[in-house]
């Protein structure tokens, strides 16, 4: 219990942890979906506070992690063009492709810029009418309204020199893919709070009903995660499976209606490839037909780039909750944040990188469930 004192509201945390221990009678496997939640769990040692029979596995909700390697290679091919200003969120710059990263391209003379917001590209486009401004539009539902606004405003403002390299993924289809797998272990989900601040949680209800799993929409702060865990375990122990909202102070069932509306006007749902997992049907966004003039994949003829992943990496199984970082022989040795072999090590929000940055690669972790090596217990 040594971690509890670090929480600002230590007494509340202690009570929730005590409640979790009191109501837990069976082993349960819970998955937190969002990379921010993973980061918070590992940083605060939340998994170490839970009963031994509760296994927290880490989901696919790290947007940098699941952006496919071939999309990184496409980004690099575009960024190398002399008439291109390639703009990106900062955390994509150090993600290695088949041949270096965006920093490498910048050091070789490419015009690669970090932007705070996608709509910064509008100003860059106006200031550089002789250049093509390409934005690397990655992310989950959280970044979709911002990326949609870039395409919308580019059209509204008549800017012909803006394009988006779209690699957008969606949470519910990934959860369906995890639950539908014959290897699935996940029995309950902590749903992604900030994704649902945009999307609401209506679309999680059919998922919960179809697979009979509790889904509790949860924030990322330690108390949120403990409370979401308690709510999920309570449903499991009572034999219920419903969508509940732990994060009601931020979001409701409808989400942000104006944001959803613009996303729907700019994007349509399509099959998407996920790094480490592969193709998931109807799991992401592409630009609608009326915005295809802004589609960088078409403008730059990079559709045929197809890159294979390292065979040594088990990130696909980690992203689906089947394995954990310590199950990988390369974790912390051949694979580190400086030299990542795959998805879950490329961003701080990935499970492997989070474990590594908090020193868990240095610890002997004991096995919790069968042949599956789990974390913690030693605190």
């Amino acid at each position: 219990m040594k971690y509890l004192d670090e929480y600002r509201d230590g007494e509340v945390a202690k009570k929730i942890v005590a409640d979790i221990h009191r109501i837990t009678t069976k082993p349960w496997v819970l998955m937190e979906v969002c990379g921010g939640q993973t980061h918070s769990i590992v940083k605060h040692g939340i998994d170490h506070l839970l009963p031994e029979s509760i296994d927290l596995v880490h989901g696919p909700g790290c947007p940098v992690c699941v952006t496919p390697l071939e999309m990184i290679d496409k980004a690099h091919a575009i960024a190398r063009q002399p008439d291109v200003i390639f703009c990106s969120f900062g955390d994509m710059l150090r993600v290695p492709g088949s041949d270096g990263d965006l920093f490498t391209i910048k050091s070789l003379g490419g015009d690669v810029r970090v932007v705070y917001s996608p709509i910064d590209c509008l100003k860059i486009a106006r200031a550089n009418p002789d250049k093509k401004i390409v934005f690397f539009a990655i992310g989950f539902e959280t970044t979709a309204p911002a990326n949609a606004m870039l395409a919308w405003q580019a059209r509204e403002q008549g800017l012909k020199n803006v394009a988006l390299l779209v690699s957008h993924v969606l949470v519910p289809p990934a959860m369906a893919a995890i639950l539908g797998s014959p290897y699935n272990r996940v029995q309950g989900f902590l749903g992604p709070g900030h994704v649902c601040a945009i999307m609401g949680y209506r679309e999680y209800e059919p998922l919960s009903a179809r697979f009979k799993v509790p889904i509790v929409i949860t924030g990322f702060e330690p108390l949120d995660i403990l409370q979401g865990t308690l709510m999920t375990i309570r449903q499991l122990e009572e034999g219920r499976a419903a969508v509940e909202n732990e994060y009601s102070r931020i979001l409701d069932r409808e989400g942000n209606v104006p944001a959803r509306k613009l996303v729907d006007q700019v994007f349509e749902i399509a099959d998407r490839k996920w790094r480490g997992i592969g193709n998931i049907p109807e799991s992401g966004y592409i630009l609608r037909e009326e915005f295809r003039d802004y589609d960088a994949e078409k403008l730059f003829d990079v559709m045929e780039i197809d890159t294979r992943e390292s065979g040594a990496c088990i990130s696909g199984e980690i992203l689906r909750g089947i394995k954990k970082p310590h199950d990988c022989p390369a974790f912390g040795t051949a694979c580190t944040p400086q030299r990542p072999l795959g998805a879950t090590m490329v961003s701080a929000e990935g499970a492997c990188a989070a474990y590594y940055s908090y020193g868990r690669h240095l610890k002997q972790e004991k096995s919790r469930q069968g042949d599956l090596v789990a974390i913690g217990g030693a605190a």
Partner: protein
Amino acid sequence: MCLAIPGKVLDTFDQRGMRMAKVQFGGIVRETCLDYVPETQVGEYVLVHVGFAISRVNEEEAERTYAALRELDQLTELEAPVVEEIGPAGFAGANAHSGRNNSSSGEDSS
């Protein structure tokens, strides 16, 4: 990048049809689009994700969330360079007035 950051709305203005605000995050002020929370008023707190307010929050929630994000080292996106509204070479200033540029000092590339 997947977590929204709370900040305080200092000022609102129009930028080519978008309702924008200057939003303060700790010691950093950034331009933020308010089109997805159009009812937001000066002095209120909003959760901001990559330059877009996505929901309103109260002050206590904003402060606690901001502190939690700082602990998780999730505030680095605020340090991204500020993009100035500048015209093309030879036309400098041509666009600067129409956009009511409010960005503070910074550079346009990193």
